[in-house]
């Protein structure tokens, strides 16, 4: 077999193994998630926690109260992470590092609270262990739990009738952490540790090498951080090189395991959704839609990188710039596709050095709106909003009042769904436009931030705003983002990109909850059949392509075709 043919088989084998395990695991995990959020009993630890924080666990919240709890909790999280960074020099285990700048602390605090984990900084030279653990790791857990809570609240709204409440945020938050994320993280961290991921507090060790020089070996509590980083679709690396760093992913099987981790909850949530609405076929339809995009993206990215177009890559004889030898092209691209489709943003290879079309695939993945399968929770609620749009479009075609899961899609629901799908593109496009239109900013962006010349430099900025507004967090990392403009603009993009859509989703949840169910008739559009999956895929594609095609043509497509 020629090397290229071997590589294709290796890709197919790894991808199929991953897909098979995911399909098998989503049954029990999806069922478990559905049970966690409907269980009438509270664990003793949970009851203690509710007493401690003064919450009546039996009281439901209106969508407004639910939203207010999320906003207050998240704002407080931002403040705490900001302050921890600003007083870093007095915290223990800070490795002698100074406090971060105001704009970097602002950006990083928002980044971790919004489940984005964009990193304008290089962790090993910026943040000590205390900020990483007490600030960032905590947000890795709670931001993921917030995402799941919002998704469950929406599903609850759809499943209930004539109800003024959509659940209790504090209960959903607690259960998401205590019964799902924490136990899975403990198991995962132990597996990672066994695989060679470090867990210590030794700082940087200096050793004498065989050649008489010195080498630096970093330390850190990495395994505990790495587990929730993938499981919570967070993606913020303990080290600058993220999941490419040999202490974060020592071997190929660990990297493949990490891809599984970042996909497993998003791919299990459709099952939980099906169980919660009492019709598992509805969950299958959502899962099928998500899977189609995931398969196509994986194939496209692998093909682009295997072809390895680009002057430098052709000269090297393969697209290995920014890729680790133990992963090779196949495992790097499976990670690349999965991380950009899940809002994780961890990387095991450097996307900035991908081929132009490969880079376009990763950007396109994020531009889908992080719904295939998307982030923990955010993927499901994003896809359900698109399902509402799809049902509406179908309703227009046959001239019937649209319904989804026995809920009427009226003007209020359509307004909320439309606002949802408009929010992220507006942030992305305005952010990119402002970066190149404001005179002072433009010079700063061109001279300080952009690394690569020409069209690729434009792609770096486009990637940054796409990643921030969609709460992904990966980067064309050549971009120097720790500047006042980039830190501030991307910080605002992440904040709006996370919480404005959540407002619309919870408003939708409330509007569905208070409706009664409408009976299923012969004229009701079935939303569990392949026909609807096709319609939903079309809706996702049309919304994305119409919005982003022009701007993609300016950057990666132009570079790839020139």
């Amino acid at each position: 077999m020629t090397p290229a043919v071997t590589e294709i088989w290796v890709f197919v084998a790894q991808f199929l193994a991953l897909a098979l395990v995911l399909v098998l695991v989503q049954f029990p995990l999806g069922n478990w998630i559905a049970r966690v959020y409907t269980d009438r009993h509270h664990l003793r630890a949970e009851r203690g926690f509710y007493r401690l924080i003064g919450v009546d666990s039996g009281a439901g919240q209106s969508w407004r109260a639910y939203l207010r709890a999320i906003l207050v909790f998240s704002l407080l999280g931002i403040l705490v992470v900001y302050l921890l960074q600003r007083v870093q020099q007095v915290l223990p285990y800070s490795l002698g590092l100074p406090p971060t700048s105001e704009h970097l602390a602002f950006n990083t605090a928002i980044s971790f609270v919004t489940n984005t984990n964009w990193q304008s900084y290089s962790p090993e030279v910026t943040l000590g262990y205390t900020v990483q653990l007490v600030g960032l790791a905590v947000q890795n857990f709670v931001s993921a739990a917030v995402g799941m809570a919002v998704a469950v609240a929406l599903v609850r709204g759809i499943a209930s009738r004539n109800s003024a409440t959509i659940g209790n945020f504090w209960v959903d938050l607690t259960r998401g952490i205590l019964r799902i994320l924490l136990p899975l993280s403990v198991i995962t961290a132990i597996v990672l540790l066994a695989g060679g991921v470090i867990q210590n507090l030794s700082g940087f060790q200096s050793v004498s090498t065989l050649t008489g020089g010195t080498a630096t070996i970093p330390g850190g509590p990495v395994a505990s951080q790495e587990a929730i980083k993938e499981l919570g679709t967070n993606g913020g690396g303990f080290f600058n090189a993220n999941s490419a760093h040999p202490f974060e992913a020592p071997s190929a099987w660990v990297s493949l395991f990490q891809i599984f981790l970042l996909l497993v909850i998003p791919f299990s949530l459709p099952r939980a959704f099906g169980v919660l609405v009492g019709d598992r076929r509805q969950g299958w339809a959502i899962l099928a839609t998500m899977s189609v995009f995931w398969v196509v993206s994986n194939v496209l990215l692998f093909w682009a990188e295997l072809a390895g177009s680009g002057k430098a890559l052709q000269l090297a004889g393969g697209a290995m710039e920014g890729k680790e030898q133990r992963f090779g092209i196949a495992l790097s691209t499976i990670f690349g596709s999965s991380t950009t489709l899940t809002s994780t943003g961890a990387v095991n290879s450097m996307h900035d050095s991908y081929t132009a079309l490969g880079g376009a695939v990763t950007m396109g993945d994020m531009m889908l709106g992080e719904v295939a399968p998307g982030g923990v929770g955010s993927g499901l609620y994003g896809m359900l909003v698109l399902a509402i749009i799809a049902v509406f479009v179908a309703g227009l075609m046959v001239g019937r009042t649209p319904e989804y899961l026995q809920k009427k899609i009226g003007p209020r629901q359509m307004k909320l769904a439309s606002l949802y799908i408009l929010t992220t593109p507006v942030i992305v496009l305005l952010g990119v436009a402002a970066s190149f239109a404001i005179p002072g900013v433009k010079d700063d962006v061109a001279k300080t931030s952009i690394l690569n010349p020409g069209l690729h430099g434009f792609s770096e900025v486009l990637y940054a705003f796409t990643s921030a507004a969609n709460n992904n967090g990966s980067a064309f990392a050549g971009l120097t983002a720790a500047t006042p403009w980039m830190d501030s603009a991307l910080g605002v993009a992440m904040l709006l990109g996370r919480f404005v859509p959540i407002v619309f989703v919870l408003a939708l949840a409330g509007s569905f909850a208070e409706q009664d169910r409408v009976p299923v008739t012969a004229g009701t559009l079935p939303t569990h059949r392949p026909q609807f999956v096709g319609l939903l895929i079309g809706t996702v594609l049309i919304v994305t392509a119409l919005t982003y095609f022009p701007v993609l043509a300016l950057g990666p497509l132009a570079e790839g075709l020139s």
Partner: protein
Amino acid sequence: MATPSGTARQTWTALRALLVLTVVLGILYPAAIGLVGLAMPAQANGSLLRAPDGTVVGSSLIGQSFTTKKGQALPSWFQSRPSAAGDGYDGGASSGSNLGPNNPDLVTAIRDRRAAIAKLEGVPESQVPADAVTASASGLDPEISAAYALLQVRRVAAARSLDESAVRSLVTERIEGRALGFVGEPTVNVLELNLALSRLGG
């Protein structure tokens, strides 16, 4: 008890919740994993490698450069991949080059590396594998391809006045295949190879 609905009460609740969660998730959870790490000290502490005299010479996971201070390859050692971490293999500054596929600087760098390696190993440029001329994602890649390791055998053996077949078998013994036959790529760990080489003498 009434539902905490007012913003002030929600804030007080949020503050207490965040405090408790910080203790559990930010301190107790990593500490528990740290305790588990005590049972797996080799992994937890970074898979350190020692010379025969017991001194730590590096980690099997963190790549090193085997060059002069100016970056010239030392002919008696197997060479690692190019690195963009600091000045090269700086364990305190992991990084890829992040240079784009058409970046002229990258084109020049790859052209120079190819020529230099072909000259060093005494082979035509077409025989230089891709991993030998490209910087890894982490800048700390501890491994190279089997092709690049085998390419270096003749030069290393000559520099150490060793039998070429002895050095070659040192390499072939250390070619790590794909896990389960299909996960990842075959590799050779450079530091482990060089450590074995130093035991061989020459």
